[in-house]
């Protein structure tokens, strides 16, 4: 028909924005992956974060107490299987899928500076901080240097040496705050998106609860960092808290004057 309007192009090249496509009903598996991403953040990763921070609190008791905690965790049955199944694999999935989610969003706080919008952006920023931090943390503390599963007594010294670098200390503090924020806001998001707290009041109250929980978790985490660097009692911790004490030779006494045989002091021949 001559009177019909030309079709609207699928994208406006001038403004560089492609048209948003309509919903694809019943196609793809992104629903499942999103739900797994959301769930994995709480169980097992969030549960592990709580366990990790509570274990680190043992460091307040010194190198031996911390070493005992590391030995206890490494004596769990099939600990390597548990470690990969409930920590590394879910964490790798949550991190990579989360990175993909973050890269597809368009932050708009410059135009719409609202609390929820800031929360959206902060969840992505804290996630990226945690992503970068955890890669170096797992590599440097778990897979390189002294192997802690075999030498649990060396745990305190290993962390203390790491935090001796002020840049590392700053990174640990920032990452602790970011991770606790990401986890506690993630619990709130989970409850909101899974329909556990649909009402405005329920979401607000649960938000306060999550904020309190995150604050407590963060304080515990920062206290454990303090245990490694701030307590003068445990400064310069032994390389291995469980190593048998080295045999110390008494210093040889100086030979008396007029001694002819320094190896037999006191006997004048």
């Amino acid at each position: 028909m001559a009177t019909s309007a030309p079709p609207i192009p699928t994208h406006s090249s001038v403004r560089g924005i492609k048209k948003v496509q309509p919903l694809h009903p019943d196609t793809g598996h992104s629903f499942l992956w999103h739900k797994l991403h959301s769930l994995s953040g709480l169980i097992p990763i969030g549960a592990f974060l709580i366990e990790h921070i509570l274990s680190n609190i043992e460091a307040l008791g010194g190198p031996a107490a911390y070493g005992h905690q590391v030995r206890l965790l490494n004596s769990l049955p099939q600990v390597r299987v548990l470690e990969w199944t409930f920590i590394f694999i879910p964490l790798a999935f949550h991190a990579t899928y989360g990175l993909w989610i973050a890269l597809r969003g368009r932050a708009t706080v410059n135009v719409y500076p609202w609390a929820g919008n800031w929360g959206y952006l902060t969840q992505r920023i804290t996630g990226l901080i945690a992503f970068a931090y955890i890669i170096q943390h797992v590599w440097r503390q778990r897979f390189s240097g002294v192997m802690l599963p075999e030498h649990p007594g060396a745990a305190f010294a290993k962390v203390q040496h790491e935090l001796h670098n002020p840049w590392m200390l700053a990174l640990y503090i920032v990452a602790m705050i970011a991770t606790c924020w990401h986890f506690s806001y993630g619990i709130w998001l989970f409850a909101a998106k899974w329909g556990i707290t649909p009402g405005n009041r329920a979401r607000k109250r649960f938000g306060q609860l999550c904020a309190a929980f995150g604050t407590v978790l963060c304080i515990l985490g920062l206290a454990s960092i303090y245990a490694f660097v701030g307590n003068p009692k445990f400064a310069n911790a032994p390389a291995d808290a469980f190593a048998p004490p080295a045999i110390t030779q008494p210093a040889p006494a100086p030979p008396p004057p007029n001694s002819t045989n320094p190896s037999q002091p006191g006997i004048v021949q």
Partner: protein
Amino acid sequence: MPSTIHVEILRQSTPDDAARTERFAIPYRPNMNITSVLGEIALNPITADGAPTTPITYDSNCLEEICGSCAMLINGRARMACSTLVDTLQKEHPDKPIRLAPLSKFPVVRDLAVDRAVLFENLKVVKAWVPIDGTYDLGPGPRQFPQTQEARYPLSNCISCTICMEVCPQFNDQTNFVGAATIAQARLFNMDPAGSVLKQDRLRALAGDGGIQECGFAQNCVEACPKLLPLAESISITGRDAMLQQLKDLFTR
């Protein structure tokens, strides 16, 4: 208040033209809205430099925030031209020109008019209607409890203005997120005693790619919605329903 309002409008003649900015100086009257500003320009389409131009093209119909046509970016924010008052904008940014631009996430047709077909496609995909064929008299519909009516009424206020989609950080060409309006309408018709016959279809559709799972709960939709729809609540409840449907399908379908 100044006697003249300065307006900067981002214009383009065709969908593929380069965008350009035109400036206008309009005599101020009390209680003007953006619609009346655009009306003044149409009466006397001459730019601030004195060059003759064409009236601004934009979608509008009711002029009282009920048809949903005139959503645009006003000082960078998605708002309705009819219910945004010049006095409010002058208080927001005193002595600055008012900037008008088309919504940024929809293809421009001309000037401030954009193609918002994606919302209507989405409403069709989730079957946002009550299925009655209309070939014969079906008699009265099933009764609704007043509580259901009261819960549904705010959702029925949606004017399809697409502001909730424009302000959403997740609504973009990467995620192809369905947007809050469609989810709220799916819930509205899921709650209808007759419309709930299609509930499973709607929930399955919303679990497809670009579905409800893409929501990042920034809640900009709630803040920006001119009709104050309970959008976050709708996404929360519909998200739960969609997941329960998927679980049920996993074991029974």
